[in-house]
């Protein structure tokens, strides 16, 4: 059994009112520990509702959720304990900042876990370094920071709890390309350093493609597919019909292959594409000489 497992998970909003809506429909999932997974789907496909089940914020209308082998809601007194295993970073997490200083805000989660002062201090400083906040920022008010810094501070607040699973809901929403790359970079770094499971929710295929190893595609409240990147991008047509796109660079290289240029690799990022083109050119250059 993986770190996250669901059995026939279904969630219905507004049961018994005219606004009834099935948000998550009969989902069976099994995500392995240490994986970095992208969850992708258009707005309203049920991504956000799905992830809120993973730390017990929503109670399934029917079906079960297991975290690390423990069933959520089987024993209500253990809910909080299980909740600490799954760190959830919401959309626009900077709106949850409230403390007087950045330090105190990052320490909020670890403090609620009942850790010792020394341990809290270690975690706050370590995560602040990880997200690239300089030590002098820790004593500032979170409301003095810039937008990107605020977001990184809020993400640090969840990372400091050192959860077994870190889930981020649209962590790059509303950021400029530079801020976006920075956040995606730090997520990758965090994953490399800690080796824990990371779930990245996004509607941008480009963001997901360069960060994750596996992709879960949601469509109309259901799981369309869960596979590695090339498996997902092979279904380009179906993805387009559900309002998603294959990354631009992947499309370009698919067309090049169709045009008769031979190469083995699957291309998901521009940097990789650059290396590939240079290598192919060099190979040809040598054969021409």
């Amino acid at each position, binding site marked *: 059994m993986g770190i996250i497992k669901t059995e026939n998970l279904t969630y219905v909003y507004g049961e018994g009112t*005219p606004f009834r809506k099935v948000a998550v429909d009969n989902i069976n999932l099994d995500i392995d520990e240490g994986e970095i997974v992208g969850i992708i789907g258009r707005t309203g496909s049920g991504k956000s509702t799905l992830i*809120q089940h993973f*730390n017990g*914020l929503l109670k399934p209308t029917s079906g079960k959720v297991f975290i690390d082998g423990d069933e959520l809601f089987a024993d209500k007194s253990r809910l*909080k304990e299980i*909740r*600490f295993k799954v*760190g*959830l970073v*919401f959309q626009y*997490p900077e*709106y*949850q*900042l*409230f403390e007087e200083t950045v330090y105190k805000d990052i320490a*909020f*989660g670890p403090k*609620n*876990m009942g850790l010792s002062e020394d341990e809290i201090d270690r975690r706050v400083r370590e995560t602040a370094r990880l997200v690239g906040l300089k030590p002098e920022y820790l004593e500032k008010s979170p*409301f003095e920071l810039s937008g990107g810094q605020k977001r990184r501070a809020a993400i640090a*607040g*969840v990372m400091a*709890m050192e959860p077994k699973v870190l889930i981020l809901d649209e962590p790059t929403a509303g950021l400029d390309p530079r801020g976006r790359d920075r956040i995606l970079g730090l997520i990758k770094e965090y994953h490399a350093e800690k080796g824990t499971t990371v779930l990245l929710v996004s509607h941008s295929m480009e963001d997901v493609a360069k960060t994750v190893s596996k992709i879960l595609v949601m469509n109309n409240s259901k799981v369309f597919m869960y596979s590695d990147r090339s498996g997902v991008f092979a279904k380009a047509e179906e993805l387009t019909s559900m309002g998603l796109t294959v990354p631009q660079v992947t499309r370009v290289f698919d067309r090049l292959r169709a045009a008769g240029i031979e190469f083995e690799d699957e291309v998901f990022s521009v940097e990789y594409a650059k290396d590939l083109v240079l290598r192919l050119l060099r190979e040809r250059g040598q054969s021409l000489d």
Partner: protein
Amino acid sequence: MIKDITIGQFFPGKSIIHRLDPRIKLLLTVIYIVMLFTASGFTGLLAASLYMLAAFIISGIPIKMMLKSIKPILPIIIFTGILNLFFISSGDPLVEWHFIKITDDGVRTMIFMAARIILLICGTSLLTYTTSPITLTDAIERILSPLKVIKFPAHEIAMMMTIALRFIPTLIEETDKIMSAQKARGADMESGNLIHRAKALIPILIPLFVSAFRRAEELALAMECRCYHGGEGRTRLKQLKTAPRDYVAVVITLIFLAAVIVLNMFSPI
């Protein structure tokens, strides 16, 4: 969950009650309230309740919703009931024990008052079930607009009400989101003593205030960008127009009012 709280509680529909002019609906509600308070006996109340039930059935709102609207005021009904039961000393005593004295008048008044409050709440909630909050404030603005002569800011008040109503769901959603985010960080809002719980609200209230102010500022800016400068010379997208059905509704309601007044003459209490 916090989302279950319904404010405004509008129930979309296409019944004739939904389509009545909101100004007329407000007027009808006022006549209905007058009807309830002129009724001096049970027969009068019965007529009023027939009127209300008929309106409920025509509107297609589930009767369940009517019962739901009574629930929050149950304590008030019980409280006034107890007061009436123990403090009315006229009439024939039914129970007498030390200083407690319950009379038949007391029992009758208790039931009468309870029935009146229940009818009042059911009838007025029908107004909010069948009229969207925005149309309602629109109607209020139109009704109050003659008062502009004495410098009464009818438009401004209606605009403030509209904005407040518009932002209730937004703020509820926001509160829900912030609560989820803080819960995910291990915030505990459900246990502990009063002081502990009050303290636990800080992580929710501060971000909520910050975002409310941010929204207010953004909204003001957006309104200014679209040249909003108050109610002077503004026209509206949806003109309120009365139709024959509105007059029919008024006539029916007035007939019921007359019936209640006539019934008063034949009914005791």
